[in-house]
């Protein structure tokens, strides 16, 4: 009696997991059946992968929680956000850079998301942390920085705890609700924070000529970081709607998918 139930539970979790990690091809359903059929070898590999992913997601949840706690404590003690960045800089850099591992997870296949999508997302975060806020000190006390850091913290805590609970087969509904609903507000807010920060950094970049290469030089190439940043800002215009609507579609599919599974049972 318990066996078929557990199998079904595994399958629905796997499907939800695959669905929630962004693998939306309709072929995925067939693949989960295939996976069950070639079970033995894959079970051991799957167990190690699951153990590692669980550890990774717990660690990342913890990292971003620490960041949240530090920020709240600082604000309660000092009453202002000035000087906050210096306190959280190291934790932020550490947590965000660690996320590069996620690209590796997709590349070796233990997480079924597109390498390119994950790569682009992680790279844009790394870019913001290392090439904007870390290197342009004058903007570190801007409100927009706090805005996007807060947004990122909330989003990442939700996301990583979602993955953790999924892997442990115990997903509280409110975490799933948070993951698939909060982005509707968080995502645009985060984009606003990032764009405002880059915009604030522009005058300092122009004045200092940082990361730029002028002619003449023996490589016969030039690079202007100022114009590069302007292009980056413009690229949000085509990219943001695509990602936003992708997440909206994922959300609809998860809710819709839930109904279908219930019908089967």
């Amino acid at each position, binding site marked *: 009696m318990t066996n078929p139930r557990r199998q079904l539970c595994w399958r629905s979790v796997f499907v939800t997991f695959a669905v929630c990690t962004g693998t939306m091809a309709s072929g995925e359903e067939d693949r989960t059946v295939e996976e069950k059929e070639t079970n033995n070898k894959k079970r051991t590999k799957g167990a190690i992968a699951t153990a590692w992913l669980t550890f990774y997601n717990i660690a990342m949840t913890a990292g971003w929680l620490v960041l949240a706690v530090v920020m709240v404590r600082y604000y309660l003690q000092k009453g202002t956000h000035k000087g906050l960045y210096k306190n959280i800089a190291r934790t932020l850099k550490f947590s965000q850079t660690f996320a590069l591992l996620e690209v590796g997870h997709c590349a070796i296949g233990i997480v079924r998301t597109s390498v390119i999508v994950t790569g682009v997302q992680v790279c844009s975060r790394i870019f913001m942390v290392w090439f904007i806020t870390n290197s342009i000190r004058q903007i570190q006390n801007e409100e927009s920085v706090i805005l996007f850091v807060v947004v990122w913290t909330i989003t990442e805590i939700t996301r990583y705890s979602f993955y953790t609970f999924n892997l442990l087969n115990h997903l509280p509904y409110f975490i799933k609700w948070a993951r698939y609903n909060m982005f509707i507000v968080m995502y645009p807010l985060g984009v606003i924070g990032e764009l405002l920060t880059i915009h604030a950094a522009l005058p300092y970049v122009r004045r200092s000529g940082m990361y730029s290469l002028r*002619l*003449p*030089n*023996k*490589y*016969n*190439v*030039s690079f202007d970081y100022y114009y590069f940043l302007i292009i980056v800002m413009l690229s949000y215009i085509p990219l943001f709607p695509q990602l936003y609507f992708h997440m909206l579609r994922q959300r609809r599919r998860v809710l819709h998918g839930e109904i279908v599974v219930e019908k089967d049972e």
Partner: protein
Amino acid sequence: LDLIVGSVVAAPGPPTPAKRKPTKKTKKAVVFFEVEILDAKTKDKLCFLDKVGKVLPSFSLHWYPARQSIRLDPKGKSLKDEDVLQHLPVGTTATFYFRDLGAQISWVTVFLTEYAGPLLIYLMFYFRVPFIYAPKYDFTTSKHWVVHLACMCHSFHYVKRLLETLFVHRFSHGTMPLRNIFKNCTYYWGFAAWMAYYINHPLYTPPIYGEQQIRLALTVFLFCQIGNFSIHIALRNLRPPGSKTRKIPYPTKNPFTWIFLLVSCPNYTYELGSWLGFTLMTQCLPVAFFTLVGFIQMTVWAKGKHRSYLKEFRDYPTLRSPILPFIL
């Protein structure tokens, strides 16, 4: 959905010659096929034809034949125009799946557009047309002779490509999806502008090793241009005019084709060589970047071609690599 019948469904060779030449009184049995065409994604029945016995005209309302992909399996490969209904693995009731390939454009059009662009764009930078560089440089020429040489090489390369498209190449497919022309032109035109900007810049720095470097680069460039052209001619001669047959290419009397012993797609090898020569000649990082990106794309194509050669011909020479002898 309206009736969509592509030319593939029409059997070019009718199953019964007796219908056409009634000179002999012997009657051959007429084989009729029933054909149904389903949409590959939704499996809706698009049309059903009974008694397909003779060549059907290809009429369609807005899905012209080049856009139609008819296949035996929804996820399989498209059938070709030359396929005859009789010779396909179907019973007397054939089920085909239809997929709309989207708006199509001919390969020749795409090639001509994507090659004409770099030719003209580079010349605009070479002649320093206004609004590119500072106004005092308008319509001036560079004082470095390597810049003039580079312009000649670059222009020669694209003129060669245009002429080959018009007179040499024999294309297997007539058309490609329309959006490819935007993608391809952005790539070619964008890179051409980026390279040309720096090579023809008033502050251009000539190669460090001066004349030696330029001479070597020019030799490599010309050698590979001739090689590339030789390969295109050899490939053209493999295929009689109007046919779409595929044969294994072999070295000919032309020494430039002897590379076929080691490589499946030497046209790409020579192309890489040409651009390496051009990079060396101009010592320009954007050119190196363009060479790298082109190399990656050509490697992908070469590997695909190599794989399809191996699949199609059992006696395919084992010494050959896709693009770089023994390496890749």
